[in-house]
């Protein structure tokens, strides 16, 4: 969807239920992925994703399309806050990082296990970073936003995105090394 198309759809969604659900379907997977990569389990990711969209029902009417921002700005911001909240409420000891049994094709089981292990590692390291770093890493690599969009959301200049990202990755690496044995590492 182009920006214009999206803004038009948002306006429609303020009055029309079908338009709203179209928006939902357009963004569901991205929001879910974003949440999943930062949270311990599928269940919790689903829970947070639901919260984000349920909130959207209440606030869609006030979304100001004249600002020219995509809906993603609002969605990722709310998702980020929910995730931060989750970790604040849960004491680190209460979080189980066990890998769930997900039914999958045996041929790809090994590969899947590697991927899910890495995901768990990432989700474990993220909360150790300060919020700004968490945001930029998730917006760039999980939400896959463009530099301009990222700059918009963080209220910085485009040029600064690169610099901030570089710092965030450095911090991420440091925290990652702290937590994981060399044999477990992928970097």
């Amino acid at each position: 969807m182009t920006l214009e198309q999206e803004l038009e759809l948002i306006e429609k969604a303020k009055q029309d239920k079908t338009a709203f659900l179209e928006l939902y379907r357009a963004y569901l997977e991205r929001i879910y992925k974003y949440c999943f990569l930062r949270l311990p389990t599928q269940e919790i990711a689903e829970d947070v994703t639901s919260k984000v969209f349920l909130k959207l029902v209440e606030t869609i009417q006030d979304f100001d399309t004249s600002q020219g921002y995509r809906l993603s700005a609002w969605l990722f911001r709310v998702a980020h806050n929910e995730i931060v909240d989750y970790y604040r409420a849960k004491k680190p000891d209460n979080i189980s990082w066990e890998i769930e049994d997900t039914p999958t094709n045996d041929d790809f089981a090994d590969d899947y296990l590697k991927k899910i292990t890495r995901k768990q590692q990432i989700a474990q390291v993220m909360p150790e970073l300060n919020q700004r770093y968490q945001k930029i890493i998730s917006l760039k690599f999980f939400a896959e936003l463009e530099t301009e969009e990222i700059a918009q959301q963080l209220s910085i200049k485009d040029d600064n995105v690169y610099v901030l990202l570089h710092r965030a990755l450095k911090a991420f690496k440091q925290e990652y090394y702290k937590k994981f044995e060399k044999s477990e590492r992928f970097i």
Partner: protein
Amino acid sequence: MAVQNKQQQSEKAEEFFDSAKDSAVMRSQFASQLEKQLEDKYITYYSSSMEDKPFWQNKKFLGGLAFAAVLTIFVSTLAIYQPWAQPQSGQQDQTEQMATTIGAELAYFEGGVEYNSEGGWQPVSESLSLSEGDMIRTLDDGRAIINLDDGSAVRLNYNSELELTALNPNDMQLTNVAGEVYSRVASLDRDFEIVTETLTYQSLGTAYTTFNTKAKQGVKVFHSKVNVENKDTGEETLVEEGKQYFKTEGEVKELSIEEVKKDEFALWNKKQDEQNEAFKDELGKLKDLTAPELKITNPANNATVEKSKITLKGSTEADATIKVKGQQVDNKDGQFIAEVSLKEGKNEIKVVASDAAGNTTQKTWKVTYKKAVAQTETQPIQEESSNSNGAEAGSIQITSVTTDSKGLKVNWNVSNLGDGNGFKVVYGLNPNPAYGVDNAIYVGDKNARNATISLKDGKTYNVRVCRYLANGSCDTYSNNMQKTAPESQSQTEPEQSISSANLSVNSEKLTWTTDTGTTGKGFKITYGATGTPPDYNGGNALTFVDALSYNTTKNGFYKVCAWDGGSGCTAISNVVEVSVF
């Protein structure tokens, strides 16, 4: 070359995260279940909008979703003096970015306060420099004050967390993550905005506390005004000085003085503001929290005077009302003077200072009026017998004032002085100190010719000696002499610094000893999985321990560093290996 490496790093990172993304598999029913939920909610939420009720009346604040709103403070400055922001050609992006950020410093902290600067949470140290991206949090007993280079001060209450999201002078963002944050903004041409998910607060040079806890989200305004904009409804509310606005209550209410007096955080902030040149004249509502100060500088309390009228002088808060003996007197910028008539004997003078909020401070000053004694009335026999030359007046002469280990030693002579009841050695910071007004020590022995005043503050004092009479007054003053009191030596011992640490291991437990035998400022433990661990550099510690042992949880190599309170060590231990897991 450097740019290439950065790009490579970004690509590598992309690869790293990419592979993990594939594992994000959604349950098939999840999408359809959620869609149904949304559909239902949309219908119920907006059904009445199709009837006569305007849709904004259906808006409810999200109790169920109760996510903590993020308070962000925006500062956009109009005119900035930044000597360090001169553009320099050929500079790398990174240094240019660093050069233009405003500095922040942890000016004060008490109790448990931690910070997170790319390396996990660690306890803070005095005068810690903070930079963009850093976070600060206070524990149950912690409070902290952060000073920003632009003159603003941000103070955290207990259990609060703040992030210095961006410190770029054109775009300053501080995020109040949780708890209570009092913002004291250096006023002038700055626009301040506090933004939450649903509310925007705009203010101009104010003092206010923003709340972001599960129980309440909102603002209390102590000075100037705050404009609150509700993003959900578009409503704008002006919250003026002395008022408060909370999201759950949805309306502007009076900030009652009683309520604020119980707010310990507000009282603490008032004290801090009073000590700050830039803020002390802009206390606004905070001023009314405490009763006005009242000082009476002249005469001294319980003084005895020989005049029937005295000039009472004192100081108080600039706009307090002053009443002396029930009569209002002029308050000139905090100073007041009143002529008071005394009756013979003891007098009690009541002085009351009251402020606009009705707080009062009262002092009852006692002054005794004893008529000057004519030579013929008191102890005439004594006088006559000691005055051999009846016509010549007696006198006292201070010959010297020296310093000794206790303070100032005063030596004097007398000449033709009749016996009195000893002497008073009067001293003060102003010349010609007088008994009854300034401090004095009493020397009972009329034959004494020296005395020592205990003063060890290093200040310069003026000293006179006068003859003390039985009626409680002093006459026949000596000359005035000046002397600087000695200064007491500082008795504090310098903190012992650890200069060596010896590490040993038993199974999974690390134990170490230091040359001082103490734990000093605590220890940072560094770790290496396969080889020698790095030296601690301020951001690479495995953990911080304020003890002399640590139980490891993984195999590898360990080193212990005696923390210097900053980003280094005063001593580094040997390396040991753990291989029991």
